[in-house]
C-alpha cells in the first residue's frame, strides 16, 4: 500500500501539483493537533536538555551546604492567609528562594534546575539509543524470519520465548549482576549507560519483530516483489530496496512506542534503586531520591516526574499521529 507510485504517473502530472508520499504524510500529521503538540513538547525538551547546560551553566554536582533546601521561585504564588491549604505568610518569610536557584536546591545545596537538565540528558539519551537498538534487533529478526523461510520457525519460537520472560524482574536481576563488572571496565557513568541501553534494547524488540515479520510475509506475495525477483534482484538488494522501505511505517510507529517504554523502563529501574548512581542522576533517580522528603519538599519529586510523564505523553501522541499519517486509508480523507 505504501509503495512508491511508478515514475510514469509522477511525470505525467503537472509539475506544480507533484506530491511526494512524505509530503502527504506530513500534511496528515500536521492536521493531528495532539501529535503536533507532542512533537513540539518533545523537541522543546530535547533542545532544552541538549543546550540547557550552556545557558544554565551551574554545575549540577557542586555542593553548597550553606544554600541548601531552597524552595522554588514560585512559592509566593501559593501563599495566602485565608485557608490552611496554602503556605501561611510567616512560614514564607522563613523560606529561602530566589532567582539564583529558580527551582530551589536539594538537601546538599545542588541546584535542582541544573540536575533536572543533566538528568534529562541521560534519560532522553537512554531512551533514544535503547529504542534504536530495539528497532535494529526487531527489524533484523523480523526481516530474517519473514524473508528466509528456514529461519522462520526457529526465530518466532525464540521471540515467543522472550515474550514469556518476566521482563521487569529480569531487568533488575541483570542490572544487579553486571553493574560492577561494566562499571569497572567503562567507568561508572558509561558502564551503567551501556548496560541499561543494552538491557532495555534486548528486551523490547519482540513486538517490532512480529509486526515486521507479518508485513514482510504479506509483501512477499505482491506483484512488485515478483517483478523484482524476475529481473534477478539479489536477495540483499531485495530486502534493502523493496522490502524495508515498505515496512518503514510500522517500524516508525513501534519506534515511538519503543521510545516511550524505554524512558519509562529506565526511570523504573532507577526508581527501584538499581539504575544510575545518585551522583549521576536521571529523572527516575531524582524522583526516587526525593520521595523520602516528599512531605517537606514535594517539588523535588514533582518536577522530574512531570518531565518523564510529559515526554512519554508527547511521544505517545506523536505515535498516535504517525499511525494516522502513515495509514494511506486514513490519509486519503
Amino acid at each position, binding site marked *: 500500500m505504501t509503495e512508491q507510485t511508478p515514475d510514469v504517473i509522477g511525470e505525467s502530472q503537472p509539475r506544480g501539483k507533484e506530491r511526494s508520499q512524505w509530503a502527504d504524510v506530513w500534511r496528515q500529521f500536521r492536521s493531528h493537533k*495532539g501529535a503536533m503538540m507532542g512533537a513540539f513538547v518533545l523537541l522543546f525538551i530535547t533542545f532544552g536538555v541538549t543546550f540547557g547546560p550552556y545557558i544554565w551553566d551551574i554545575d549540577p554536582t557542586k555542593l553548597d551546604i550553606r544554600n541548601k533546601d531552597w524552595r522554588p521561585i514560585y512559592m509566593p504564588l501559593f501563599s495566602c492567609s485565608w485557608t490552611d491549604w496554602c503556605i501561611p505568610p510567616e512560614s514564607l518569610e522563613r523560606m529561602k528562594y530566589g532567582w539564583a536557584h529558580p527551582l530551589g536546591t536539594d538537601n546538599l545545596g545542588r541546584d535542582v534546575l541544573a540536575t533536572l537538565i543533566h538528568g534529562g540528558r541521560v534519560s532522553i539519551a537512554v531512551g533514544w539509543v535503547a529504542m534504536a537498538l530495539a528497532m535494529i534487533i526487531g527489524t533484523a529478526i523480523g526481516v530474517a524470519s519473514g524473508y528466509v523461510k528456514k529461519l522462520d520457525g526457529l526465530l518466532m519460537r525464540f521471540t515467543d520465548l522472550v515474550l514469556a520472560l518476566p521482563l*521487569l524482574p529480569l531487568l533488575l*536481576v541483570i542490572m544487579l549482576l553486571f553493574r560492577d563488572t561494566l562499571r569497572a571496565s567503562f567507568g561508572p557513568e558509561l558502564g551503567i549507560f551501556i548496560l541499561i541501553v543494552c538491557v532495555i534494547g534486548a528486551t523490547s524488540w519482540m513486538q517490532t519483530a512480529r509486526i515486521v515479520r507479518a508485513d514482510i510475509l504479506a509483501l512477499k506475495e505482491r506483484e512488485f516483489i515478483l517483478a523484482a525477483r524476475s529481473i534477478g534482484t539479489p536477495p540483499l538488494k531485495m530486502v534493502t530496496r523493496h522490502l524495508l522501505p515498505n515496512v518503514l511505517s510500522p517500524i516508525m510507529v513501534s519506534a515511538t512506542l519503543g521510545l516511550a517504554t524505554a524512558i519509562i523502563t529506565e526511570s523504573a529501574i532507577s526508581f527501584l534503586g538499581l539504575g544510575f548512581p545518585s551522583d549521576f542522576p536521571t529523572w527516575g533517580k531524582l524522583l526516587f531520591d526525593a520521595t523520602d522528603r516528599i512531605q517537606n519538599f514535594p517539588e523535588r519529586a514533582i518536577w522530574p*516526574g512531570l518531565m518523564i510523564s510529559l515526554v*512519554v505523553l508527547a511521544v505517545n501522541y506523536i505515535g498516535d499521529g504517525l499511525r494516522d499519517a502513515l495509514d494511506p486509508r486514513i490519509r486519503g480523507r
Partner: protein
Amino acid sequence: MITFIIRRLILAVPTLLFISLILFLLLDLAPGDPMAQMPLTIPDEVKQKMREALGLGEPLHIRYFKWLYQFFVVEPGYFLDWLFGTNMMEGTQRVVSWQFRTPVFDTIIERLPQTLWVVAMAYVVGVLIAIPIGIISAYKQYSVFDQAGTLVSMIGFSVPPFFSGVVVIVIFSVKLGWLPSIYDTTHVVKDWESFKVQLMQMIMPVMVLALQTTAQISRYMRSAMLDNLNQDYVRTARAKGLGEWSVVMVHVLRNSMIPVVTVIALGIPAIFGGAIITEQVFKVNGIGQLLITAIQANDIPMVQTITFIFAVLIVVFNLIADVLYGVLDPRIRYD
C-alpha cells in the same frame, strides 16, 4: 479443543524448562556469596560444609536438576502434605532462602495475600471501570466523553506508577490527610471499623494500578465495539425492531467482549510485574517488594523462584487466553 489444549500444555513444558535454564544460568553468574556475612572466625572447612548444605559447591548441571526437582516435585509434595495432613515429603530438601534460612515458598505464601488484595482488586476495579468507558466512547464516537476518555487513557499510558503514586500521596495524604500513605499489612479486618481502615489504605495503590489497567482495556473495548457497531448484523437487529439497549448491550457487547476477554487474561501476569513498583511506592510488603529485597540481598533461590513463578504465570495465562478465544468465538477452530 481438547487436543489443542493438550498440545499447548505439552509445548509449554519446554518453554518453561528453557526459561528456568536461562534464569538459572543468569543467576549463577551472580557475584554474591551467601557466606559473606558469616563471622570470620568460622573455619574454612566448616564454611565449605555450610555452602554444601545450601546446595552450592556442586557442578552446575547437578544443581540445576536439583533445583528443578525441588521446584516441581518437592514443593508441590509439601503443598499436598499441608493440604491433606500427610507427610510423604518428610526429610527432603526444600528450596531454602539464603536471607531468611527458611523455605522460599513459606515466605511467598506469607506475602501473597497482600499482593493479591492490592493487585487483584486493582485489576478488577480497572476492568470494571474500563468496560463501560469503552462502550460509551465507542457508541458516542468523537463526543466530548470519547475525547475525554482518550485523554485519560493517554495519561494512564504515559504517567508511570511511580509518579502517579507519588502525586496521589502528596495530594491525599500530605495535603489533605485523608488517606494513609503507607500500607499497613499487619492490619486485621475484624469489624466494620477495621474494614473501613483497610479500605482507606487500599484506595490509593488500587487506584494507581487501576488507572493503567483502565487506560489499556478501555482502548481495546472501544475499538472492539467500533469494529462491531458497523456490522451488518447490527443493522439487521435494528431493522427487526429491537430496542437500542438490547442491540448495543446484548448483540454488540457480546461480540466485542471476545477479543477484550483475551486481552484481560493476557494482562494479568503483566500486572504482577507492574505491581513491583506500586508496592515499592506504597510500602506494601507483597511479592514485588520481596523480590526487590531478595535482589538487593543476593538471595538467589528467592529471586529465581519468584521470577520463575512470574514466567509460569505468563505462560499459563497465554494458554488461558488462547483457549478462551476458542471457547468464546465459535468461528475459531483449532483443529
